[in-house]
């Protein structure tokens, strides 16, 4: 699809020789501008992250040792270890220096480098949220297109209302409902899926593990898809509707194209743009995970790590995660900006 459009929109041949240079310049300027914006945003996020979590009430050392029989000396030692006895500006300078070296610090609670904790958890998160996002996007695109094409029909009304209904359902509640229905089983219905976790303890072997993970993924992914696919559906629906008034569709029909082809070859490619932006934005958020779903299904991802870190607050952990989450969105936005010109010739000019 992209190829056809690119070739179709290529500038007319005459000035082929002098042409490339100004165009290359334009592309470079475009690229440079976007990269600069992204870098500035990232720096702002880093600074914000430090101060944002210092504003949080509560003393990390007091929270960590709550209910434990610790002495004042132990608490002092922890404070020294964490650098919390230093003045704020000193802590900030240390933080900046570390961040510039890509050193995310050491978690208070786990006594392990944050980078290690993130590495451990990022896989599960991307697997769950990524799969969920892709399925939801695909489902939303297909259903949204159909709904728009037959706008006002019973099918459109049902599909849109079901999507909106699910969109307004709290994800943790839907998750619990699915657990009750499909995991623990009720009455004649046996429990089909595990209640939570990612792998059954004791599973070995690559194939067995993959299969076991897939089995554990069904309910959380289903919950996520059910709750989020509405946004793709609604956006796709409205942008297809926008295109439906366009002259080129009338032309296409006048050519005698079958209605289905008019839709697939002409309306959908043009209507895809807003949805692509949305998909990229959400892919950025994939790293933040889906906190509530991860919590209900005990999925060992970044979202639940962030949540548990916030309660302490485990400052190095939440600071680093915040930068990672925001950074992922910034980078995905950048990618969307870069991919856009390929998809839409109008941006290139």
């Amino acid at each position, binding site marked *: 699809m992209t190829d056809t459009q690119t070739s179709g929109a290529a500038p007319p041949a005459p000035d082929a020789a002098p042409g490339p240079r100004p165009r290359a310049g334009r592309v470079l300027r475009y690229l440079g501008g976007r990269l600069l914006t992204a870098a500035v945003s990232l720096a702002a996020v880093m600074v914000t992250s430090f101060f944002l979590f210092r504003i*949080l009430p509560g*003393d990390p050392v*007091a*929270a*960590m040792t709550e*209910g*434990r*029989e*610790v*002495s*004042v*000396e*132990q*608490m002092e*030692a922890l404070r020294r*270890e964490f650098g919390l006895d230093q003045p704020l500006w000193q802590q900030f300078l240390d933080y900046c220096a570390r961040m510039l070296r890509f050193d995310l610090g050491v978690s208070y609670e*786990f*006594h392990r480098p944050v980078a290690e904790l993130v590495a*451990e*958890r990022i896989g599960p998160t991307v697997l769950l949220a990524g799969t969920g996002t892709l399925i939801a996007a695909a489902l939303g695109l297909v259903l949204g297109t*159909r709904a728009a094409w*037959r706008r006002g029909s019973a099918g459109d009304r049902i599909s849109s209302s079901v999507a909106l209904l699910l*969109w307004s359902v709290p994800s*943790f509640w839907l998750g619990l409902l699915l*657990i009750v229905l499909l*995991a623990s089983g009720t009455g004649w219905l*046996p*429990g*089909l899926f*595990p*209640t*939570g*976790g990612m*792998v*059954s*303890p*004791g*599973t070995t072997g690559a194939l*067995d593990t993959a*299969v*076991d*993970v*897939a*089995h*554990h993924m069904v309910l959380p992914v289903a919950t996520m898809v059910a709750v989020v696919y509405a946004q793709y559906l609604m956006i796709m*629906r*409205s942008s297809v509707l*926008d295109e439906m*008034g366009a002259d080129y569709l*009338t032309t296409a*029909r006048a050519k005698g194209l*079958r*209605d*289905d*082809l008019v839709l697939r070859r002409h309306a959908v490619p043009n209507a895809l743009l807003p949805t692509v932006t949305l998909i990229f934005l959400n892919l950025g958020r994939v790293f933040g995970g889906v906190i509530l779903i991860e919590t209900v*299904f*005990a999925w*060992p991802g970044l979202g*639940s790590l962030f949540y548990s870190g916030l*309660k302490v607050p485990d400052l190095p952990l939440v600071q680093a995660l915040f930068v990672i989450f925001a950074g992922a969105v910034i980078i995905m936005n950048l990618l969307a900006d870069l991919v856009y010109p390929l998809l839409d010739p109008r941006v290139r000019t």
Partner: protein
Amino acid sequence: MSTVIPPTAPAPGADGAPGAPRARRRTATRLLAGAASLGLAGALLPAGAAAAEAEQDTMTVAISQPVDSLSPFLAQRLISTSIHKMVYEGLVGYDPETNEPHPMLAESWEPSEDGLTWTYTLREGMKWSDGEPITADDAAWTFTTMMEDSDAATANGNYVENFEKAEAVDERTLEVTLKEPQATMLSMDVPILPEHVWAEAGDYGDFHNEEFPVVGSGPFTITGHEPNQSVTIEANPEYYDGAPEFEKVVFRYFSDQDAQVEALRKGEVSLVSGLTPAQADSLEGQEGITVNKASGKRFQAFTVNPGAETQDGEEFGDGHPALEDKTLRQAIMMAIDKQELVDTAYGGYAEPAEGYIPSRYPDYYWEPEGDDRLPFDPDAANAMLDEAGYEEGEDGVRESPDGDRLELRMHTHNDRPDYVAMAPIIVERLADIGIEVENKEVDPGVLSDALHSGEYDLIWTGWSVNPDPDYVLGIHTCDALPEEPGTMRGDAYFCNEEYDELYAEQLAAYDDPEGRAEIIKRMQAVLYDEAVVDVLTYADTLEAYRSDQIASMQPQPDPGGNLWGQDGHWSFSSAVPAEGGSGGTGPSGGVIAGIAAAVVLVVGGAVFLLVRRRSATADDRE
């Protein structure tokens, strides 16, 4: 989210177009394919679940948080220290039935005349799980390392702060020399570690003990850890008291309590703890499930700000000035109906409380008698306040003799359902005696900041009391006041000379357990009379287990005790598997079910693609 329908959009010609029915048919085909794969799932998965012939000797325990570290030097979370109790023994533990000191690695112990030297004699012929002998050197090494290396002192350093030295006299004799006598030498919760493994470990701040199987001395050894998911321990054949009957225990992490309960219903887990009264009620009487209602280790209380001050007497914070008056504090205590709290907030699963130490520990449990008692009696409380010059204003709220209106703030943890349920009742009861209370449900962090800055009037608290109550008594000594405004060890700004003298006395009463218990009861009487710490309830510990997987477990104390979170490994080392029961869903069943799930996904995807492909070629032919 709104739907945009452009008013100018032409009516879709689709309906009349020749392609429409076809497209509709294709959608139908795809839906059918989807339904077929779901049906397939339904057909295959139950078969898989039924085939889940799990190993009989595995117990699966639902836990509410992942472990922070497997190193006993670092681990602070309750889950981690509970698992360590199965894997490493200390010198002396607590009897499963009576909570009295009980021989663990040490079979006997003896303090010197002056109480400064303690001699522990280890059992004969004990071995670590790797077959190496357990000697007094291991114990001496553990204590010495905690004294010398601040990383090693992170979790349990408090126990060795008063140590002068710890040395091995011979293979089986350990001698600990103290700087001052202390009564807690039999209640040290310190896991003894194998020197031959740990001496070479390097930086203890960064060593997490993840070499499996972990070398330990207890009835189990750790054999696996899936970070953030599960910890597996297996029976230790070298254990001096014989290997436990359950060969394997898996601790599985579920962050959601309701999901834990569902997993228990299904039989995926064998034991669930920390149930709410509603959950316990819903599990009661279910086939194959036994609900265990145990007397709790925790007390729930609120403290009254008696005027926050530092150790040097510098006052700070903004507590209501009238609360410095003991009469007012006692009137507050008398206005509250504790039985009402038990019934309303706990559905009866609690005990109304008076003394500071829960009734679970009969040796130290204290109840006020006669004139010392401050019973629930709003009329008497009102009369006391009238007499002390607290006059009622027009709106029914009293004013202190100094003219301060009695309006108080109450800080309540918003993450504790029981406190949240009790707080409004207390607001109502205090209104009955002319005190206006504003209930502030706040984040624990906000609450902790309010406490440490002294900016509160009433604030919730609660402690889990260990069989030796030294620590929870210590937090109300004057020493526990902050050196300067900020964080402190205590939680009430309580400081009382008589209490401090009694505290020192009980600490030195290392050779007279009964005399020490008497002193501890007198301390509680002082605390009660000052009415700064209003102990309200002792909530029950509610647990449930699959009786078709576990035939029996040793509660602590016995009878009426809990199974999870014991002071020791008793429930797990004594657990007997049920005849013919299945212990949690083993991997074999999960794998079959999982294969089915994967097949469904693949088949579904393939069908989808095929349908698409075929329609595409059809279009092209046209």
